[in-house]
C-alpha cells in the first residue's frame, strides 16, 4: 500500500533507448495501466520498477523510499509474468511459499497466508499439484496467488492475460478488478489490449517508442486524445483520421477534404478562426459517423455527405461500413436493418460536435477549441 513515483526514468540498451525520460505517479491504491504497441518499452519499464533491470537514468520511489538502486527483493513489490513463470519443479503450495520462506516467515504464517490467498482465488483444491498439471487459467491464478501472499506495496503485472483464450480473459479481467478492490493496493499493469486498459484502469499511461504520450483516466484518453497516435490507439475500430483544410465560407468555418466539406459547429467557429486556410488532421470516431438511407435524414442536412460504400461488415448489433473518401478510407457504423451493399452511395451523417482536430505537423498534437492558456 504505497504510492509509486517514477521520475525521468530512462533505459538504454546499446543504441536503443527503450524507455525515454518517463515520469508518472501511481497513487496509493491506483490501478495504473501501461499500454502501447509492441516494443514501446512497457516490459522494460516494469522491469525497471521491479529492479530486474538497472535504470540508465532517473529515479523510482515506492512509498517514501528511494528504490532506484535496491535489489528486487528489497523493493516490496511482486510481479506476475505473461508466461506465469511458475517454478515447474515445485507444487502450487511450494510455489506460493517460496518467496515467504526466502524471507524467513514461519511455517504457520506461510500456511495461513497461502490458505487465505487460495480461498480468494478459488485454488484450494490445486495446492498439491505441479504447474504442468494445471490449465492456463489455473496457472494464472497461481501466479497471482504467489504475488498476493507476499502482501507487497506494489503489484506489477506484465500482460498477465494475453496467454488466455478470449472468454477466460474476459472473466479474469473482471476477477482482477475485483481483486484490486479487495486487496486495496497499488497495481501497475502492462497490456497491449486497450479493452483491458479501458475497463480496468483508474488511469492509463500510453507509451510509444519509450516516450510517454498521454496519462489520464480512460475516458479522458478516449474523448480528448492529445495527438493522433493516442487517437488512433485507443478505441476499436480506431478513430478516422484524414488530412483536411480549414476554410472560411459565408462566415462559416468548414473542414474540407477530398471527399467532403462540412461545417465546424457554430460554438467553435470563433475559436478556430486562427486555423483559417491551415492544413490539419480531421478526426472523428466511427460511432460518430452514421450510415443512413435517402429520405431517412431527420438531421441538419449540412452535416450529411454522400460517400461510396467499400465494405459492409455485419456484426449483429450494428453494421460496420468502410467508406471511400477520396484517397482515404472512413469507418462508419449503421443500423443492422439498413439495406446497403458494397458499391452503394449512401448519405453519411457526421456528428460534428464530436470532431477532433490535430496539427498536421508531427507529433500531430491536438488542437483545442480553447487555445491552451
Amino acid at each position, binding site marked *: 500500500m504505497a504510492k509509486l513515483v517514477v521520475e525521468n526514468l530512462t533505459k538504454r540498451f546499446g543504441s536503443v533507448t527503450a524507455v525515454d525520460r518517463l515520469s508518472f505517479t501511481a497513487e496509493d491504491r491506483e490501478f495504473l495501466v501501461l499500454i502501447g504497441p509492441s516494443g514501446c518499452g512497457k516490459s522494460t519499464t516494469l522491469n525497471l520498477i521491479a529492479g530486474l533491470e538497472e535504470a540508465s537514468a532517473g529515479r523510482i520511489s515506492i512509498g517514501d523510499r528511494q528504490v532506484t538502486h535496491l535489489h528486487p527483493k528489497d523493493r516490496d513489490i*511482486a510481479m506476475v509474468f505473461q508466461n506465469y*513463470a511458475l517454478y*515447474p519443479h515445485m507444487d502450487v503450495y511450494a510455489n506460493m511459499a517460496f518467496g515467504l520462506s*526466502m524471507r524467513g516467515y514461519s511455517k504457520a504464517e506461510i500456511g495461513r497466508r497461502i490458505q487465505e490467498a487460495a480461498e480468494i482465488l478459488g485454488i484450494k483444491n490445486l495446492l498439491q499439484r505441479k504447474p504442468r498439471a494445471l490449465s492456463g487459467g489455473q496457472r494464472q491464478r497461481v501466479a497471482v496467488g504467489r504475488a498476493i501472499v507476499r502482501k507487497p506495496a506494489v503489484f506489477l503485472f506484465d500482460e498477465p492475460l494475453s496467454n488466455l483464450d478470449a472468454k477466460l480473459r474476459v472473466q479474469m479481467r473482471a476477477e482482477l478488478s475485483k481483486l484490486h478492490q479487495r486487496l486495496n493496493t497499488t497495481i501497475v499493469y502492462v497490456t497491449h489490449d486497450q479493452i483491458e486498459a479501458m475497463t480496468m484502469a483508474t488511469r492509463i499511461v500510453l507509451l510509444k517508442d519509450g516516450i510517454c504520450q498521454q496519462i489520464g483516466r480512460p475516458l479522458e484518453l478516449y474523448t480528448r486524445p492529445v495527438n493522433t497516435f493516442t487517437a488512433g490507439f485507443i478505441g476499436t475500430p480506431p478513430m478516422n483520421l484524414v488530412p483536411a483544410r480549414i476554410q472560411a465560407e459565408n462566415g462559416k468555418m468548414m473542414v474540407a477534404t477530398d471527399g467532403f466539406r462540412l461545417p465546424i459547429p457554430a460554438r467553435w467557429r470563433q475559436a478556430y478562426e486562427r486555423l483559417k486556410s491551415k492544413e490539419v488532421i480531421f478526426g472523428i470516431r466511427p460511432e460518430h459517423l452514421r450510415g443512413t438511407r435517402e429520405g431517412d435524414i431527420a438531421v441538419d442536412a449540412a452535416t450529411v455527405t454522400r460517400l461510396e460504400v467499400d465494405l459492409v461488415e455485419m456484426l449483429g448489433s450494428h453494421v460496420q461500413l468502410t467508406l471511400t473518401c477520396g484517397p482515404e478510407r472512413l469507418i462508419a457504423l449503421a443500423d443492422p436493418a439498413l439495406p446497403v451493399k458494397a458499391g452503394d452511395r449512401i448519405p453519411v451523417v457526421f456528428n460534428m460536435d464530436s470532431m477532433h482536430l490535430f496539427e498536421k505537423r508531427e507529433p500531430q498534437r491536438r488542437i483545442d477549441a480553447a487555445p491552451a492558456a
Partner: protein
Amino acid sequence: MTDRLHGSARRTIGIYAPLLLFVAFALFPIYHMFLTSIKTDRALYNLNLNPLLVSLGALTAEHYRLLFTDTLFASWLMNSLIVSLSSTAIAMVISILAAYGLTRIRFRGAATFGIAIFITYLVPYSLLFLPLTRVVTWLNLADSLWALIVTYPTFLVPFSTWLLMGYMKTIPEEIEKSAMIDGCNRLQILTRIIIPLAVPGIVCATLFAFSLAWNDLLYSLVFISPTEKKTLTVGVLTELIRGDVYFWGSLMGGALIGSVPVVVFYVMFMDYYVSGMTVGAIK
C-alpha cells in the same frame, strides 16, 4: 477392421525388424567378447570349431582368474573409477557454473567467451596432450592419478559447458526473475531453481563426461607408467599383450568388465538421458 489390423501389423514389422537388426549388430561384439572370455585357449585356437559357439566341455573361468590374480586388474578398475568419477565431478561443477554464467549473466565478452569455449571443444584432444605433458611435468603430477584428474577436465569442461548452455537457454528467464523478486541471489537461483530444472541436461552431460573419461586411453597411456597406477583401458592393453602374445580370453574378459559401469550408469539414468537428448525438440 482387418485393414487396420493389417496396417498395425505391418507397422510393427516396419519398426521392429530394422531395430532387431540394429540390436544384433550392436550386441555382436559384446557377445563375441563374452564367448572368447569363457573359452579354453584350446577351443579358442581350434580353427575347426565354429567361433560363434562354445561347447560345454570347453568352458573355463581361467581367463578371469588370471585377470584378478596374476594382474592388477582390480587396481586398474579402481583407478579408472576414481579418475573418471573425480574428473567428471570437477568438470560438472565448473561446467554448471560456466554454463549458467554464460547464458544468463550479461557481462562484457560473454558471447565471445561462449564461442571460445566452443572452439576449445573443437580442438582435437589428441593434440592437446602434447602441451599438457609439459604442464603435468611442471605440476609434478606425472605417474600419479592426479595427472588424469586434472587433465581430463580440459576436454570434459568445454564439452559439457556447451551441452549445458543449450539446456539452460531453454529455461524461461522469467522464472529467474521471479526467483530474484522472491528473494534469491544468483547462487540461490542456481541451486534452488536452475539446477533442479536442468537435471536432465546435467545427467546427460555427466554421463557423456563419465564415459569420455572412462574410455580415455591416450592421456592415461602418456601420463602414467607404473603398473599399479594404470587405468583399466591402458592396463588391459599393455599388460595382457606381451610382445606378440595375446591373452585373448583375459583381454576380452577385462574389456567386458570395463564396459559394465558405463552400461549401468546409462541404464540407471535412461529416462533423464533421453529427455536431455530431446530438449528443445518439443514445445
